[in-house]
Every structure is written in C-alpha cells, then in structure tokens.
C-alpha cells in the first residue's frame, strides 16, 4: 500500500494547463525525485499536494484519504510538511521561534492559561522550548537560536526551513529545490543530511531538484515532468538513458 497515490491530477491557470493527467506514487520511507526543466510544473504539483492550490480534477490519496482540495493547515495535520523554492521563513522572528510555531498545532495549554499565566502555561512553554532546541541541534543551529531568521546566511536559512518542516512531525516531507543557491560542498552535506533524517525519522521524502546528477545520487526512483506531464519514471539509470528525458533537457538548453 503506497503512502501517497496521485491519480489524474489536473491544474490549469487560465488557458494554460500547468499540470495534466499527472499520476504519481510514493511508498512509505521512499525517497523519490521529481525533476524537469524550468516551468515544467514541479512546484505546482507541490502546491497541489499541500493545498496551496486547489486542483481542477484528480485525486491525491495520502494515508488512504483523499486530501485534494483540503485546507493547507489540515493537510499539515495529516502529516505532510514542505519547504519552498523561495525560502519562506518567518523573517522577523528568531530562529527558535520559527521552529516553535511548528508545535503550535499540538499546544497543550489553552487561552485562559495563557492569559492567567497558570503553571500549565509554563510547563507547556518549557516542553515547546526543549523540543524546538532538539531540532535546532540536529541542524546545527542551536548557537543561532536567538538570531533573527533573515540575518542567517542563505545555507542556514535553508536548513532552518527544513528543521521547521520536520518539527511539524510529518510522515512525508517534500522539498522544493533544497540545494538551490548552495555551493557543491553545502549541497553534498545537505544530501547526506536528507538521507540521514529519512532513516532517523522514518520519513518518505519527495524531492524536486534541478540538478540531474544530484538527484540521481540520492533518489530511489525518479519522475520526469515536462509541460505538466510525466514523460518518464523509473530507476535513476533508466532515466539517465531515457531519450525523451534527454530531449526535454537538451531542448531547454538550446531554447
């Protein structure tokens, strides 16, 4: 039984079909890549899965439940977390507060305790603080806990965004070009980290990446998207030698 099963997903903007007849499957604890040239519709697929966009048709079954068209905050509660291609941190907040927000959906004190500052409030805050620090430690950000998020270097902002997503306790993590803008060294470290968190947190990971060689290295299976449609899927070796894929990428380079 697969964790995520997408059938016939369709999304159009005005006349343009950004995603069409999209079929996709992700098993528990699998690491799958979604690649494709610029404007292929990769980010749109992520936006559909996480509820940012409502699909025009098709189904997205996650954990045996159709989540297509649900509100993003409900989809998050079902166990889907993501990062963004253009980092979307809570810029003016401290690093630790960025992560703390992820625990709000499970907050264990109520508004009355908040206003009256009852012991339940202090207990709850202490737990949240400890948990947030755990995640900062994993991503080596604990020394920066009180820094304003937008003051972090780019690579650290990317890491913080992943930390924040993981803190929502997802069963599936989707990463939109997590290595964009990183140097080769940072990219390698990030990929190792992604491998590690997948094992340690027993996650399924869906990864968008522009860099083909990078995706080939870490992903177990790969889907290739072009003009909103899957043109190939299979093992990395199969994709590497697929004619259509090579054409799609060459076409991009020539155009």
């Amino acid at each position, binding site marked *: 039984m697969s964790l995520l099963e997408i059938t016939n997903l369709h999304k159009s903007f005005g006349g343009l079909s950004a995603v069409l007849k999209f079929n996709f499957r992700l098993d528990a604890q699998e690491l799958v890549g979604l690649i494709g040239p610029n404007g292929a519709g990769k980010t749109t697929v992520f936006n559909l899965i996480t509820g940012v966009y409502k699909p025009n048709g098709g189904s997205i079954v996650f954990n045996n439940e159709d989540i297509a068209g649900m509100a993003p*905050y409900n989809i998050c509660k079902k166990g889907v977390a993501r990062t963004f291609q253009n980092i979307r941190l809570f810029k003016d*907040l401290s690093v630790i507060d960025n992560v*703390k927000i992820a625990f*709000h959906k499970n907050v264990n004190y109520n508004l009355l305790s908040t206003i009256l500052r009852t012991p339940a409030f202090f207990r709850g805050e202490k737990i949240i603080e400890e948990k947030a620090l755990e995640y900062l430690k994993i991503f080596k950000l604990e020394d920066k806990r009180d820094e304003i998020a937008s003051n972090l270097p780019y690579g650290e902002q990317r890491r913080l965004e992943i930390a924040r997503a993981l803190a929502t306790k997802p069963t599936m993590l989707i990463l939109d070009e997590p290595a964009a803008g990183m140097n080769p060294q940072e990219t390698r470290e990030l990929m190792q980290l992604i491998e590690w968190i997948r094992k340690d947190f027993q996650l399924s990971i869906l990864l968008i990446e522009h860099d083909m060689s990078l995706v080939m290295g870490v992903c177990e299976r790969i889907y290739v998207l072009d003009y909103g449609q899957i043109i190939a899927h299979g093992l990395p070796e199969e994709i590497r030698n697929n004619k259509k894929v090579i054409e799609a990428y060459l076409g991009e380079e020539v155009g």
Partner: protein
Amino acid sequence: MHEKKKTWLTFIFEVIVLAVLFTIVQYAMTVGLINQSYQINITSMCINIILAVSLNLINGFTGQLSLGHAGFMAVGAYASVIMTNNLGMPFIVGILVGCLAAGIAGFLIGVPTLRLKGDYLAIATLGFGEIIRVVLQNIDYVGGPAGMVGITRLTSWPWLYAATIVTILVIVNLINSSYGRAIISVREDEIASELMGINTTSYKVLAFVVGAMFAGLAGVLYAHFFYIIKPETFGFLKSFDIVVMVVLGGLGSTTGAVIAAIFITFLTFALQKYAAVRMIIYSLILIIVMIYRPQGLMGSKELTRKTFARIWSGKK
C-alpha cells in the same frame, strides 16, 4: 532556583511600582491637586492606551489593516450605557456587556472581512465602522443623531487604571505565547503559517475579536466619563486617530503603542489653546516622525525587563 527567586523579586518590585503610581495619582485627586482639565487628560490617556494597544494587536501583530476600531468603541459605549443608565445595572455589568457586545460585533464583522487582504480589508473595515455609526444614528432608543445624554460618571481613576493594566497584561500575555506566535506568523507569511498547521483565518478572527473587546472597554470608560455619547464621535476620524498612534509607536510594539498614546494625548492637550494651528502642528510632527523613523518610534521592539536590566547594569 536563584533565577526563579530573581523573577519573583522582579515581579514583586513591579507590583509595588504599579501600586505606588496608582496611590500617588489617587491621593493627588482626592486632595484636589489634579484639576478638572488634568483629570480629562489622564482619562483620555488611559482610553487612548487601551485603544492603541488593542488596535496594535490587529494591525501590528496580526498584520491585518483595520480602519474600523472606533466602531467597536461605539458598540461598547452604547451597550454599556443601555445597561447602566437605561436598565439601572451596576457599572461592572456595563463593562462586561460593553466588552461582550463589541467582541460579538468584532466576530460578525471579522468573519466575512478577514478573508480580504491589505487594502480591501482596510476599506471593508472602514465601511463597517461607518455602518455601525449610521445604524446608531437611526435607532431612536439610543437617541439617534443626538446620542445618549445624562450618563452618570462612573469612570473613576481605579477603574481606568485597572482597565489599562488588564488590557496591556492580556495582550502582552497573549502575544508571548504559542497563540501569539501563531498570530505573528500570520503577519510574517500567511502561506508558510498555514503549512505549519495553523488555521490562519481563525487566528485573524481571534485577534480581531480580542482587539474589538478592548476597544469596547475603551468605549465604556469614555461614555461613563464624558456624560454624553454621539454616533459622530465614533466616526472614521476617530479610527484614523488610533491608527496614527499605532503607526507612530511602531507596528507590532505594545510599548510603542503605549508611548505613542501618551504622546498624542499630551500633544492634543498642549495644543488645545491653539485650535487654529493645532492640526497643522499635529500633522507636521507626524510627517517628521514618518520621514526620520518610518518604522515608528519603537519599530517592532519592546521595552522589557531585559532592556531595563541592560540599561541598569550599563549605568553601574
């Protein structure tokens, strides 16, 4: 343990400071050191603080530009006067009913309008504020355009002081909590916030309702001090006044809102005698502040215990 003891000592110290401040003013009032016009000034100051701090919750912390705050003030004022003057209930009932009525109005207006963003929300709240005013103008039971007169003065210094402190305390405690972080995350990035599992609409409504309730409280205190309330007192000009305080203090800074409210109250008071040039000077000061400090006096920073501790240890 040592830390805990220190926190308690600071807390006790703060309570003493607040009590002393209260007693000084109370004493000065009883022995007649504070004349009528200063009394009006102090009352306006407290009311303005309540208004600015509560609007800042909506505009500053939640990032939802509301231009209808005076409307909620009106609801609180009218509802409470009906309780106290028309129905003969005690002041506390007036206060509770005033806050509740304003909160309900906030909910009814917030649910449909808070889907809108930015300018659209601003215009919608402005419109609703005006609707409240026009509705009041057309209800004979509350005096129509002439308003309600002959209200008993029940707003005394203890009530004012308590109301101001409760307002600040509730909002500061709310903001410095998981709920507060959820509220602020809406301002920071609504989409990211939703994807963290936060139902952003419900937090916007929460902030709007809490803000409206305290605006209602300000209305109650206003009505029971100035003997008379008229719909036109609570028009959009009043709403703009409150927005000015919030922007001047710095969006998202409670300390800023308090300081700006005090500043504007004194400015209005000082310029009373120069009615002709008053608006010009008032506007000039605002323009100058906005040119040299567009983020407002405090930005989004707060004066906290830590700030004072730093200043204190710096001096030693």
